[in-house]
């Protein structure tokens, strides 16, 4: 169960009080429209966590965290629907386990709030060198996205598919955007975030919800809040089919199918979509696993996932490049079976059981992520409520959801064999 409070306009606090865990976690997420400010926001997120007013020195801040039994404090940037979501978190050992009776959690909470509201700035500047370092680190981490080809292919498919929607933007901005951010823009981004961002604070563990709410209410008191609204575009159908392709010297090709579900918002037909996608390419009982992998031995992985915040489904597989046609045909054939009801009741039951099972959240991190995922939603639901919804889905509804799936884009990373270039001394 959770407790919901409001700390200020557009600032929700969701607390899941429990002493079951040894870890306490609190995550402050803030949503803003994903637009040309993405790079400045991403740089800001890093700058705010690298140092703060109370600990202007990076080493001393990290020494403090080590002394707090290895507490971790940080930020990351992602997207939910057409929103950029910046999250600041702290996870720490519960006070019960400290060796000298130190208070760990209170200290961590203070650090987290300080990070967001009392940054290490002088004359509206985070420091020229600090910004240069963060630009270098962010640019390099964007470049490193290439290292994991599976994730890279998915990203490229998203960009191709949503080229005219905010969701098609990289959540950290592009390399060029990051490099051109000015100091004044980072400072403005901070002010803007505090003013218009939709804040969603999730705390799991041994916390006093009133204390957290009071703490943030105090911090927002002097800020003239004007929370933004975020509208996500949902396309009913993929209208302009296209296949994007890139070649790399690697061993395995990566294929991504991007589908539109026809959902009109993140709750539209939610349960049927979830069950349909799970039977199509979720667990080991799914059509794609059972056929593309087990029966046809074409792939080690071939799976589907639903992005409900955007009404999109992706199918991903690692394959031999010359088998693209065979795999694509197999994927479409399996989808046809979904549409015509060629799957048995046992599979439907297995999928519902597995979906329910995946909602048995048993770590503080997974509980925190669950509640965080409602950042753009008015109504927050427990895993139990969602699990009950799956049970009502009928076979007809599953077929109907599959009927509405339409291919929008395909992205293929073709593997080109190279001569082995290895140097040893």
């Amino acid at each position, binding site marked *: 169960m959770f407790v919901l409070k409001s700390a200020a306009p557009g600032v929700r606090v969701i607390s899941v009080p429990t002493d079951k865990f040894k870890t306490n976690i609190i995550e402050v997420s803030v949503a803003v429209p994903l637009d040309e400010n993405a790079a400045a926001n991403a740089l800001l997120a890093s700058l705010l966590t690298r140092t703060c007013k109370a600990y202007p020195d*990076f080493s001393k801040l990290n020494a403090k965290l080590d002394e707090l039994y290895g507490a971790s404090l940080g930020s990351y940037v992602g997207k939910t629907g057409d929103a950029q979501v910046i999250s600041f978190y702290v996870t720490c050992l519960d006070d019960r386990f400290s060796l000298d009776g130190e208070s760990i959690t209170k200290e961590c909470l203070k650090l987290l709030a300080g990070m967001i509201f009392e940054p290490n700035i002088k004359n509206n500047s985070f420091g020229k060198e600090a910004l240069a370092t963060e630009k270098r680190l962010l640019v390099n981490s964007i470049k490193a996205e290439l290292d994991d080809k599976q994730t890279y292919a998915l990203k490229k498919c998203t960009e191709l598919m949503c080229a005219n929607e905010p969701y098609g933007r990289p959540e950290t901005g592009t390399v060029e955007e990051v490099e051109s951010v000015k100091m004044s823009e980072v400072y403005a981004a901070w002010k803007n975030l505090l003013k218009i961002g939709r804040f969603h604070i999730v705390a799991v563990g041994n916390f006093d919800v009133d204390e957290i709410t009071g703490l943030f209410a105090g911090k927002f008191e002097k800020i003239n809040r004007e929370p933004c609204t975020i509208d996500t575009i949902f396309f009913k159908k993929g209208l302009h089919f296209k296949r994007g392709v890139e070649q790399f*010297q690697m061993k395995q090709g990566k294929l991504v199918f991007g589908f539109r579900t026809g959902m009109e918002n993140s709750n539209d037909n939610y349960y049927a979509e979830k069950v349909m996608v799970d039977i199509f390419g979720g667990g080991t009982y799914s059509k794609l696993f059972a056929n593309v992998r087990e029966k046809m031995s074409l792939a080690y992985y071939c799976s589907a996932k639903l992005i409900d915040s955007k009404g999109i489904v992706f199918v991903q597989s690692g394959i031999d490049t010359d088998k693209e046609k065979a795999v694509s045909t197999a994927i479409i054939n399996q989808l046809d079976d979904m549409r015509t009801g060629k799957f048995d009741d046992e599979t439907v039951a297995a999928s519902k059981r597995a979906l329910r099972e995946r909602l048995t959240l048993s770590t503080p991190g997974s509980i925190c992520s669950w509640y965080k995922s409602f950042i753009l939603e008015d109504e927050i639901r427990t895993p139990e409520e969602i699990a009950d919804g799956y049970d009502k889905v009928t076979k007809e509804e599953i077929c109907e959801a599959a009927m509405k799936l339409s291919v929008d884009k395909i992205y293929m990373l073709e593997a080109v064999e190279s001569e082995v270039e290895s140097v040893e001394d």
Partner: protein
Amino acid sequence: MKIKEYRDEKLGESIFCAKHPSGLEIRVAPKLEYDSSYALFAVRFGSVDDYIGKEDGTYEKIPEGTAHFLEHKLFESEELDAFELFAKTGAQANAFTSFDYTAYLFKGSENIETSLGYLLDFVQSPYFTAETVQKEQGIIGQEIRMYQDLPDWEILFNLLKCLYKDNPVSIDIAGTQESIAKIDDKLLYSIYDTYYNPSNMILSIAGNVDPDAIFSQVSKAIKRKKKDVPERRFSPGSPKAVSGYIEEKLPVGKKMFMLGFKEDLKNPEVSLQEELASNVMLEALFGKSTPFFKKMLDDGLIEMDFGASLFNGYGYSVAIINGSADDPEKVVSLVKAEIKNAQKNGLDKAAVERAIKKMYGMSIRGFDSVGATANLQVNLYFSGYKPYAELEAIRKLNYKAVSERLSKLTEEGCALSVIIPG
């Protein structure tokens, strides 16, 4: 069967252990406030086991990737395969092969008894045919290629090849396309009969379970085997690296480096105390709170992914320092200078204390997860340790024990592996 309770007062938890007459170790960590449970049935046979011990005491080489191949095939049976069985309970079943062992597992919240029954049953019921073995070669072939495209994986195996000669740790766990082509059903049966023996296995479960019920269920389901399991092979090898440097071109965004110092092992494994001390030593030298990290970051030499830890198991132990960098050689020379300085002038005492405190906190927090709790028991058991040995060892760590590990970072046992964008 004698059941023994181990309790850690500070943690507020107990683990119950018993040795089944067949030799199977059973460890149960009840966490009654949880909804789910996580069970592993594991065998001390992994990718470092590249020989099969014969009854006459001799050893015969087996193809690389055999342990992993066997893991895949054990899921199949004459009737319903294991995945189909677990679909009935909703539990999520899986398996993995590491360097040192192979584990079959499930996580679930309902019908735990049924799921546990499935687990015990399928791992004890091998079914291999020429046909099913051949089918798997396509799937595993794709798995091997998937890993070969991961630079983090390639850089590690390249480093291990520089450090070790004739040591199976330097071979990809899944083997190669060529090696797995040599695997047939007969080989899988003989490996299974030789090593999948309860006396070489552990059943570890954590979560919402009653220890007595688990002991009784497991006890009834275990099939005893008469034969003894052959000793694991260990040859100390040379303290010297085979080669000091290796690089490979891969389509990556930035240069990556991995520097390794192998330890000259007299015994097959470093002790738990030594492993933890090494990790504290590396954290005290290169962790985020060190002046070294800050200076390197400010000078534009490293990224936030810079880090160090011990990579160890049966027959191998390597202190690894890695990250991405424009100029790996420069980073490496500064890392080595930092090590030399510590070897001469000693480690920073405050940094060591902080690192121990951090390790203690992280270790306690590991018990939040039913999966981590059950997995830790498998690791501990296969290295010969009791349930809370890790926490106890961390509490005993001190400056002297940590400092002693510095001497294991030697120039002769050192190699650098680099991935270059291309």
